[in-house]
């Protein structure tokens, strides 16, 4: 047949089918012109066309079925070599697996064949590589290779351990395992993958159907069909990319699908997806974090190794903080006490709030800030307050067993760490680091030091003298020392900082993380050392670095928070306010408008408003936060009380005495009930209430309260204590109102101004005392002296943003002096 002939045939065929059937034969007879062969050909075509039975009318699936599936039909008696095939276990594009019995030994094995190996060299290569890979792996959770060879027709095969189990997905469906059991199973799977990684083998096709679970719950990894050995050049990434395989893309890491990039993180991703399916919603938030970290789209954000993933699974199982959020100390802190998460989170709130500025126990001396001494005062106050008073005395855990569980968990955990993780020093180091952070956060400095030291040692041993982890530990320790405000601690902090600063340049390319730590530590130390400007510069640099590198969001926000504090110290309340508002937006977006972080930022915002003299706004903000705190923590929680005290300070500054008194007394009553009459809260609030009462002219109540607070302060803390100073001032104000000037004057003289500033965090103590003295002098008729005191107080109270009450008092004093001058 040639083209011409074919055209002839087709033309005839088309002409014929257009005619009625009974006319076709006659047409052919005529048209073919006695060419019998031609006629037969067309006749045959017409028949086929009529019947519609051309093989081409059958679909491809049918053919494929007959051609390919048929070869899988079983022939149970089939034997080859030492094996007798028993039944088909599974099939797929990459081969078929049979259950077989060894004829000599009688044991069962699984045999995988690669049918039609010759069709593609690539397939054959891959099969050979799977055999090599399996041969290297000897692990209880990985099916072992026994034997390999080829049939006479060249079909390659290998025999491996037969696993009598069911796929992971089915197993989980059949057994209603609790979360903990699921996590343990997952952990076992991870150890097998980790082992393979240790052999430099990446599985690349981890998914539930490739993991069988035996009746006793032992998992077994199968199918290293596309596993890759790291030290071998990957001959063709295309060959094994999921796009080219029939891997479920659900389990394949995005970067691998995208551009063929393969690393340990490839398997970490798949494990993350598997875990995500093993522990379905609803589940604890920590598991969300864990899954999210493992399944992160960016491989650099994922757990760097299966070891790290296992570590966090262990943390979860032991109720310890996850490494997944290593930079969020609030989180580390809270995680220790899951039974009372909110209490602990709130303790963190209090902590930051205090570390930030905290003048809730204000002596209501004034509300604006001083440029020069203010920073010093607040820094000092903050630290002493934190170390000596607040954390020592106000106990956010009181009234429940959370403190016990926190302490006992931590103390029990520490000694076991080294033993349990002898072979994994990095795990042990991280654990010590976490413990250190937790102790640090609750100002248990001796314990924290021990843990930091141990973590540092382990990192140095494991990673060498230039270990970045060890440097970070040093820096964290330096920050803690600075904040501890213990004797000699500042010098130690500075020497730790200097040590880290001189080690970092020796690292060839230090990570942004370690540089950010260095800057932040410099900032913290500067802040504590009252160098707000330097602190501000360092925090700003740290923040800018954190923004340009891929640092954890929480860490970045944490730095931002520090930066905001430094602005407050610099007297740039507006800048602090902006930053806090940004933080509120960010935290709300990330964790909801009522998450501990968000609330923390909102409390800080209210404080920055107060610091700027924006009392009305501060009160409004307090009013918004208060119901949330009551709902989340209860109205008698320290953080709630702190907020109320803070609101009272703003109210007092605006002369809203009734409101201020109500709030102060509320806090006082609860504080007495919770902590007894002799506590910082109780005495401080009673004293604050007394000032408001006397300023409102309610001298009898005010004097009684002030006197009570004063006596208790002297008894508990001594005459020179800052707290005592505050109560002396309160009592003096009330006595002046009742014209008992000598006693008032004596009280004012007894105040240790520096200690009181430290205690209250308010730099206007001296100015307020001067104003009180001025009033005494005026009442005594000594107007020259009164003027002298008025002038002393003026710089603090003439400034814009000064508390209206103070402005009024000063104006009143000046009026009296002026009236006298005119009268004279």
């Amino acid at each position, binding site marked *: *047949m*040639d*083209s011409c002939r*074919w055209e002839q*045939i*087709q033309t005839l*065929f*088309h002409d014929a089918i257009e005619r009625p059937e009974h006319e076709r034969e006659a047409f052919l007879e005529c048209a073919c012109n006695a060419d019998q062969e031609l006629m037969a050909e067309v006749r*045959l*075509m*017409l*028949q*086929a*066309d009529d019947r519609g*039975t*051309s*093989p*081409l*009318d059958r*679909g*491809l*699936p*049918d*053919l*494929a*079925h007959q*051609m*390919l*599936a*048929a*070869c*899988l*039909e079983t*022939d149970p008696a*089939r*034997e*080859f070599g030492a094996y007798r095939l028993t039944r088909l276990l599974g099939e*797929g*594009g*990459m081969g078929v697996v049979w259950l077989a019995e060894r004829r000599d030994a009688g044991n069962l094995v699984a045999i995988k064949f690669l*049918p*039609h190996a010759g*069709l*593609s*060299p*690539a*397939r054959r290569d891959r099969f050979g590589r799977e055999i090599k890979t399996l041969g290297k792996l000897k692990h209880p959770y990985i099916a072992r290779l026994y034997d390999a060879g080829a*049939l*006479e*027709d060249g*079909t390659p095969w290998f025999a491996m351990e037969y696993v009598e189990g069911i796929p992971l997905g089915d197993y989980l469906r059949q057994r209603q395992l609790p979360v903990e059991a699921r996590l343990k199973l997952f952990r076992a799977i991870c150890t097998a993958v980790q082992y393979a990684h240790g052999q430099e083998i990446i599985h690349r096709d981890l998914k539930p159907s490739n993991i069988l679970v035996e009746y006793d719950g032992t998992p077994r990894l199968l199918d290293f069909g596309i596993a890759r050995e790291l030290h071998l050049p990957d001959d*063709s990434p*295309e*060959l094994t990319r999921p*796009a*080219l*395989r*029939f891997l479920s893309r659900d389990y394949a890491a995005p970067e691998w699908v*995208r*551009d063929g990039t393969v690393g340990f993180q490839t398997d970490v991703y798949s494990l993350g997806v598997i875990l995500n399916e093993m522990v379905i919603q609803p589940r604890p938030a920590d598991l969300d974090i864990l899954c999210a970290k493992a399944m992160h789209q960016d491989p650099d954000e994922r757990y760097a190794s299966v070891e790290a993933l296992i570590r966090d699974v262990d943390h979860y199982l032991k109720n310890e903080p996850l490494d997944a959020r290593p930079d969020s100390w609030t989180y580390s802190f809270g995680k220790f006490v899951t039974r009372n998460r909110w209490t602990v989170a709130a303790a963190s709130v209090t902590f930051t709030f205090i570390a930030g500025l905290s003048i809730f126990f204000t002596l209501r001396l004034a509300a604006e800030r001083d440029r020069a001494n203010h920073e010093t005062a607040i820094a000092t106050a903050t630290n002493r307050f934190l170390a000596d008073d607040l954390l020592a005395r106000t106990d956010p855990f009181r009234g429940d067993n959370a403190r016990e569980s926190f302490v006992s968990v931590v103390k029990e955990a520490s000694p076991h760490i080294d033993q349990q993780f002898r072979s994994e020093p990095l795990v042990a180091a991280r654990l010590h680091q976490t413990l250190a952070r937790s102790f640090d956060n609750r100002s248990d400095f001796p314990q924290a030091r021990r843990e930091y030291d141990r973590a540092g040692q382990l990192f140095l041993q494991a990673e060498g003298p230039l270990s970045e982890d060890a440097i970070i530990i040093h820096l964290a320790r330096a920050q803690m020392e600075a904040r501890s405000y213990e004797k000699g601690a500042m010098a130690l902090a500075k020497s730790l900082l200097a040590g880290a600063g001189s080690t970092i340049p020796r690292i060839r390319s230090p990570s942004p993380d370690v540089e950010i730590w260095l800057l932040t530590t410099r900032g913290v130390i500067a802040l504590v050392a009252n160098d707000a400007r330097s602190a501000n510069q360092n925090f700003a640099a740290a923040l800018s670095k954190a923004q340009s590198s891929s640092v954890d969001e929480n860490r970045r926000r944490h730095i931002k928070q520090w930066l905001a504090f430094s602005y407050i110290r610099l007297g740039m309340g507006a800048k602090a306010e902006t930053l806090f508002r940004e933080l509120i937006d960010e935290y709300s977006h990330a964790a909801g408008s009522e998450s501990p972080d968000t609330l923390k930022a909102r409390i800080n915002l209210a404080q920055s408003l107060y610091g700027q003299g924006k009392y009305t706004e501060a009160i409004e903000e307090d009013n918004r936060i208060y119901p949330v705190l009551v709902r989340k923590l209860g109205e008698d929680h320290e953080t709630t009380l702190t907020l109320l005290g803070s609101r009272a300070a703003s109210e007092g500054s605006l002369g809203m005495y009734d409101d201020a008194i109500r709030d102060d007394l509320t806090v006082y009553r609860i504080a007495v009930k919770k902590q007894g009459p002799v506590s910082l809260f109780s005495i401080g609030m009673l004293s604050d209430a007394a000032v408001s009462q006397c300023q409102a002219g309610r001298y009898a109540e005010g004097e009684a309260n002030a006197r009570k607070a004063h006596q208790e302060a002297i008894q508990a803390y001594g005459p020179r204590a800052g707290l005592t100073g505050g109560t002396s001032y309160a009592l003096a104000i009330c006595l002046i109102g009742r014209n008992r000037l000598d006693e008032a004057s004596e009280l004012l003289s007894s105040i240790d101004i520096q200690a009181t500033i430290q205690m209250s965090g308010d730099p206007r103590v001296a100015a307020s005392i001067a104003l009180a003295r001025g009033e005494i002098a005026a009442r005594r008729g000594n107007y020259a002296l009164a003027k002298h005191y008025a002038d002393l107080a003026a710089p603090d109270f003439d400034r814009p943003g000064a508390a209206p009450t103070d402005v009024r008092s000063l104006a009143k004093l000046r009026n009296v002096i002026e009236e006298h001058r005119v009268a004279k």
Partner: protein
Amino acid sequence: MTAPQKVLVDESGRIAEDQRALDDLFSLTYEELRRLASLVRRNSNRASINSTALVHEVWIKLKDSPRLVLTSIPHFKAIAARAMRQVLVDEARRKIARKRGGDGDASFVPLDESNEGTVRCDAELVALDEALNELARVSPRQAHMVESRFFGGFSVAETAQAVGMSESAVERDWRAAKAWLAGRIRPRYQ
């Protein structure tokens, strides 16, 4: 057996330059075909499995591949169709050869060879392949059309586009080729 090279000879351009990529594509198609077969065997909904869906799925999996610089879906489909034809026909030939000479012990495939349908199918496929080759000699366009439609799941519209003809012309060509091929295959084995 150098099946991929056969594909290579038939296709031109960048794809043909990359033997390895072609091998990938080939084994991919092959594996997909097996998967399809096993789906059919498991009594899945047969109607839902057709060569169009199959080739489309393979395309979806391949289209992001940078090394397979596939310029168009039709181009890819043409390769896939050829690969599928190759796979099926090779398999049919193997079966026939084994039936003739093999003792059965040396090769893997444990078929129940008495299955008449299968036997007929083997022979038909081989006959189809031969007939298609013959058709390609007198009308490469129609052979390509058959290959695309039957093995590649091209629709009439796609086929028309691929060969640059109207749809009605394609229908006409297809009907003639189909009838002719049927006539070539059936008489010998029926």
